[in-house]
């Protein structure tokens, strides 16, 4: 294969929090009737993760499975595994009315980590990120400043963010502004009973 580069080629920044574009990530969109056993099976097999409920994301050793809408799932897997997994999915789906397609190159993915991660994200997203409200395991499609994004938490201090590839630089720049030195808010931290 020829030279492949992610949107920002693994750019990173340290401020209030650590921001990393984490490189190429395999992503497969699966649209279909999520109540069908075939669709469920194809999704869980491809991701190795349990079938997620509404707005949930489940993880496995090699990937994750996210509920994106009532008829859409996102399968995360290693970038190099996409074509294999997609081929298997297509085969298993057979004549089922569904759409499975590689979207890995259409997206960029970031990690935002640190104690102030909730506050940094709250500067850009109109979402209640209180620790008792937004927890690891939930995925939220929303806006990051002026662009569409999907966010979830890997652990209590780490967000993952997916946006379109063309606006990766914008997302990165906006996150850097939100994480600029001296801009701590102390809102979610202050409310954390711990």
């Amino acid at each position, binding site marked *: 294969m020829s030279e492949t580069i992610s949107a920002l080629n693994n750019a990173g920044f340290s401020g209030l929090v650590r921001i990393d574009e984490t490189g190429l990530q395999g992503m497969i969109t699966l649209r279909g009737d999520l109540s069908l056993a075939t669709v469920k099976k194809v999704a869980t097999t491809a991701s190795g993760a349990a079938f997620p409920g509404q707005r949930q994301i489940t993880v496995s050793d090699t990937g994750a499975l996210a509920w994106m809408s009532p008829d859409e799932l996102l399968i995360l897997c290693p970038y190099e595994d996409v074509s294999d997994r997609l081929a298997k999915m297509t085969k298993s789906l057979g004549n089922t009315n569904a*759409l499975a*397609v590689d*979207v890995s190159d*259409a997206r960029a993915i970031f990690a935002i980590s640190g104690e102030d991660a909730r506050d940094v994200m709250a*500067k850009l997203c109109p979402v209640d990120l209180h620790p008792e409200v937004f927890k690891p395991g939930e995925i939220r499609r929303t806006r990051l*400043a002026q662009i569409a994004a999907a966010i979830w938490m890997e652990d209590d201090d780490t967000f993952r963010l997916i946006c379109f590839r063309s*606006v990766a630089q914008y997302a990165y720049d906006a996150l850097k*502004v939100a994480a*600029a030195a001296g801009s701590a808010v102390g809102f979610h931290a*202050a409310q954390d009973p711990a």
Partner: protein
Amino acid sequence: MSHRHSKSGRLTDGNKEISFTFNGKPLRGFEGDTLASALLANDQMLVGRSFKYHRPRGIVASGTEEPNALINMGEGARFEPNQRATTTELFDGLVARSQNHWPSLDFDVGGINASLSRLLPAGFYYKMFMYPRAFWKHVYEPFIRQSAGLGQAPKEGDADTYEHFHAFTDVLVIGGGVAGLVAARAAAETGARVLVLEQSAHWGGRGPVDGGRIDDRPVDNFVETLVSDLSARANVTLRKRCMGAGVYDHGYALGYERLSDHAPDSNGPRHRLWRIRAKQIITATGAIERPLAFAGNDVPGVMLASAMRDYLVNYGVAPGQRIIVATNNDDAYRTAIELKKAGLDVLRILDARETGGGALMNQARQLGIRIDCGRAIAKVSGGKRVRKVQICAQIGAGGALEEVGCDAVAMSGGWSPAVHLWSHCGGKLLWDDTHAHFRPDPERPPTGADGKGFVLPAGSANGILSLDGIVPDAIQTGRDAAKAAGFRLRKAPEFSVVQNSEAPLEPVWLMPQEARVGLRAKAWLDYQNDVKVSDVQLAAQEGYESVEHTKRYTTLGMATDQGKLSNINGLATLANALGAPIPAVGTTTFRPPYSPISMGAIAGEARGSVFQPLRRTPMHEWHRQHNAEWEPVGHWRRPYAYPRTGETTHDAVMREVSNTRQNVGLLDASTLGKILVKGPDAGKFLDMLYTNMMSTLKPGKCRYGLMCSENGFLIDDGVVARIDDDTFLCHTTTGGADRIHAHMEEWLQTEWWDWKVYTANLTEQYAQIAVVGPKARELLDKMGGMDLSADSLKFMEWQDGQIGDFTARVYRISFSGELSFEIAVPASQGLAFWSELMKAGQGLGVMPYGTEALHIMRAEKGFIMIGDETDGTVIPQDLGLNWAISKKKEDYLGKRAQQRDHMTDPTRWKLVGLETLDGSVLPDGAYAVAVGTNANGQRNTQGRVTSTYHSPTLSKGIAMGLVLHGPDRMDEVLEFPGTDGKTYQARIVDPVFYDKDGEKQNV
């Protein structure tokens, strides 16, 4: 003179001196001062000039309600006009300048307006500038523009940064005075998440200055304990220097946090805009003291009684040595008592009430202060500072009984609850006769998504003016809010309160009651905009009855303070003039923000590189390095052309076109929309979306298609490729990708939800490169890989395969008329693929070309461009595209509309080519004129230019346009007057200028 009376103010540190300048003059203040208190400490009574008459203006208030002390703050990239000195915390090195005067604050030419004030009454501008009409443009408008505005606009970009913050909370408390803090405590007790905003740098509001005891402690001591209690709670967030700016629908509120105005050298953002969603909002915003309307109440040295008390207690600053107090209520006695206790000369308390006040009056009398009941100020004299006061009876026309020399006047006309935030989202008010003020009507709160009230007023913002009423009201409000937010109540906190009781006030809207004309014309209501009692009375006389109309006619309350001091006095004056009760006149509408917030805070992070989300293709960086000039297409940045050293943009475009026609060119076409449509009903669905038949397209083939809205108008075009039996890939225009994907989803979700179709927007999954020109195949052959010969891949076919090391999908389609391959590779390989193509094409003369070359080549071929030939009113039939409209289909989006009379009208302008007689380029958008004129005296028109270029291929100007009966008028010459004064003559020709038979693309 005003002076520093004591080094130990409640908020100032007399051991920490700091320096600042005012109008270039170096001055000193203490840490903890506001700019206003420091100016007063330096005997700077005169701080500005009023808007209309340029009257001398002094500090009248101590908080955000201040109308006069507006200053230009800072310098250069930190310059900001119209900052209130009363809410500006002093810092070392602060630079302030007064505004609205020339040449200097002390000597101001504009002050001449004041002596003309009788010629500048209410509505002056409306009356004066009406006639003659011809004067508008060159006389009146320049004059108005020159005199408009107070401060100067900054000349440099803002050096500071700003940000937003989204906060969610159960209970938002706006105001950190005693009521706000007590309410917060009561709400927090239930476990609710509570966010408290206080606009100033200090907790407690007026409480610590106004006295009384809570829980057997002085108020400031109680506040300190309460704040530390709240700070320790995990469910409470306290923010100082954060003003509740506005309350909006469904519990949305804005907080305006000023992080570094008081410490400009600190790191981080200057302001933060809190975008808050609260289940319940408590407005504990306090009350604002009203001035008294007497002649000369605007002379520097006349101050609100509460402000004078604040300056003395909080900052150790006395606004004068010999002071007169005028009041209609008991609260002003507190000021007199404090002044007297501080050893200042309180010459007189003039109490407009015949019987005077209660316990506080007795206390003042015991201190030896002379109290005159039923007395009023007839007139204050002095230019730039108070010199003397004429005293008269309140009942009467102002015949002076006595004249007393003094250097400051404290006035109090009673208190109005700050109901702004209650009212922003529709909370209604009721008139309270006891206190003569409007207060929130608890029966008519702003309502939220559930139809129930979501704002609760507390304390003096609720019309409760005594501490022993405020505290229990705040407890109840805090509990009510928590309960309404869904929390179970536990035991309520209890606090004992001691405060002097007060005698009722007596409304005084004019002092003296029957003041004669000369006095009324000097009795100010709105200090900043120079509106006097006489102006409002004149407006009433001239027939203005609505308070909203009067406001605009007189400009009452329209200044930057939005009438915080003037509104109630103004509408009471209007009510009296109309002989109507005050509540019948009502208030003007309260609109956010409560007081002005910075533009930077509103913009937040959206500046510089994050002003808007620019979209970049995978090859963006290569284009940048090769000197691309950018064309914005939606949020995308596409290379317009790649000028070389010494080359103009025009020359570059000409070179790019010629090279592509002669050799081979590369176009970054990644921005084109690519939407996958899959399912058993995909063909049926696309037949509805496109005007032509897509369901008959064979796998492996491509077809150009048109999309219309239900109105029949052309909205997008592009090539559809059939991937397999139930899968299509639809290409859209660059600007259309998101819109058309949304359009498809809308019809699938809301109309044909039983159709078995799924879509996915794959626009960004692929980098797409057009390899165009007679040597295109040769170039690709050099890369190696799949067979791209004319027999293997025919025109309007696509294939998957390998090109060099790249897995690619190749579409043989052409938008230039040349042999052309559009090749899609995964976006992450786009840059590598592009670079390899450039390398492989070295010997073939390969060059990149930009969007302008693309446009010229398509125009040479007579291809339409969405957005040029279409503007939302054009149907495909106008563009000679009938061949792309299926006659067989019963239905498609837009079909019915295209059958309407107007759409089938033979006089609709139709697409033609246009060729200037002299080879010049027609002006874009120019109209072809016809004989005669229309009803407005303008030339009649018979067509317009939609696209126009210089064609390097044909060495002349070529254009397309829509012309009346155009296709039937070949070779006719039309006239197009340009905005450059020239008239262009152009011949109607066929729109296809180049290779009409399509031989070049089909090799």
